[in-house]
């Protein structure tokens, strides 16, 4: 009994969009290659097996950065174009980014405990990562505590853009504050041994594939939610209408 203009509530059978199937296939393929390449990668001479956490830690960090950059980008696009899809994409990117950032913050201390002997140091990069995590948790909370779709989208877009802009400022500030740089150097400066490059590359690709798959699923959930809300609204309208007609014509 849904009116013609509203989307029909989705049935469980037609949920998988082609993009979900594609990203899932790539993810399954890559993760098997990834598992094999990490298992067969050479052991680090100094650190031993714990060094292999790098193949999880750094790709997750890249995926988290990607998520936060996309949050700001889609937020800016939303403010410019005012199309709902950009807001949903920004939300999905922030949520998936927080998941990967959490993985970074969990895997980092495990490695640090084995190598530095301490779970945490206030190294600039560690501090900025923790701060990023807080910024995007606040972003998600802001969305949860704001009523009204359009207002939520505007507020979140402003905060998402500002969150990204402050990263260089924070990095500079914490560096200046005298955080000791214990964290290993960036990879382009050649801190990776021979035979470690390939598993690292595959790990990064796998993390990006996982990111894409989760992003697609998350956006889909948002659209299903929207469709359900519209369907519920339509039903309410219909019931109201039906109630009025019976009142007018009691027979």
């Amino acid at each position, binding site marked *: 009994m849904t009116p013609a203009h509203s989307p029909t509530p989705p049935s469980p059978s037609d949920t998988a969009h082609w993009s979900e199937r594609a990203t899932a296939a790539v993810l399954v393929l890559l993760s098997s290659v990834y598992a094999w390449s990490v298992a067969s990668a050479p052991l680090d001479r100094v650190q031993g097996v714990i060094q292999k956490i790098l193949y999880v830690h750094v790709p997750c960090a890249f995926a988290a950065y990607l998520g936060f950059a996309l949050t700001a980008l889609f937020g800016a696009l939303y403010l410019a174009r005012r199309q709902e899809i950009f807001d949903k994409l920004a939300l999905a990117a922030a949520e998936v980014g927080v998941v990967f950032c959490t993985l970074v913050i969990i895997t980092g201390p495990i490695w640090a405990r084995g190598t530095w002997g301490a779970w945490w140091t206030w190294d600039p990069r560690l501090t900025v990562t923790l701060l990023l995590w807080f910024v995007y948790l606040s972003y998600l909370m*802001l969305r949860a*505590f704001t009523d009204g779709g359009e*207002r939520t989208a505007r507020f979140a877009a402003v905060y998402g853009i500002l*969150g990204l802009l402050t990263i260089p400022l924070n990095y500079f*500030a*914490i560096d*200046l504050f005298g955080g000791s740089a214990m964290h290993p150097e960036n990879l382009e400066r050649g801190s990776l041994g021979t035979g470690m490059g390939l598993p690292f590359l595959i790990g990064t690709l796998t993390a990006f594939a996982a990111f894409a798959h989760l992003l697609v699923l998350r956006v889909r959930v948002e659209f299903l939610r929207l469709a359900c809300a519209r369907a519920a609204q339509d039903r309410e309208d219909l019931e109201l209408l039906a109630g009025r007609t019976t009142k007018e014509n009691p027979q």
Partner: protein
Amino acid sequence: MNVFVAVLWKDLVCEWRSRDRVVAMLVFSLLVVMIFHFALPSDVAAENQASLPGLLWIAYVFAALLGLNRSFALELENDALSAMALAPVERGWIFLGKAAANFILFGLVQAITAAIFALVFRMGLLSIALPLMGVIALGSLGITALGTLFAAISVRTRFREIMLPLLLLPLLMPVLIGAVSATSALLRTGSTPFHNIQLLIVTDLSYLIFSFLAFDHVLDE
């Protein structure tokens, strides 16, 4: 520009007639100072002055959060906020007017708190009063610029008193780091290295410009 003066004047007159915001902020920050006195070992002031600048800025941030929350909450009465959004003016100037009023009121609270703080913790602030005022003004500019923008956001959310610190504190980190290190250096040596001031100026300017531009999207359409 006229909008800026009008909003600033309106906020200052409102505050002058009620005087509730400044008094509340001041009493609160003095209470925080008193709590520090009891929370810390009694010799901390005499032995270890290094932690004092940090404590002073903690008291400032707490007071600022209180005042900033009120800054837009009072616009909700009689739906003045909607009237502001409807006014056919450049919204950035409304933001600057609100931020300037917050800056002035907050500065008043900061000056009195600093004087009391110096008295109770026996800090020699008089000899460095002028450069210290500069540092405090720079720090407060960053806090009020970003804080006014986020107050306008959080006033339209549920749990607005909680939302403001959650939004503000993570992004305030560079301002606080710059302000605390500049204040510490001033206390230790009587002068402050330029890179601290540079950090404060860069942060303040970027927050001011961003908030000026973004305020258009923060008020309801």
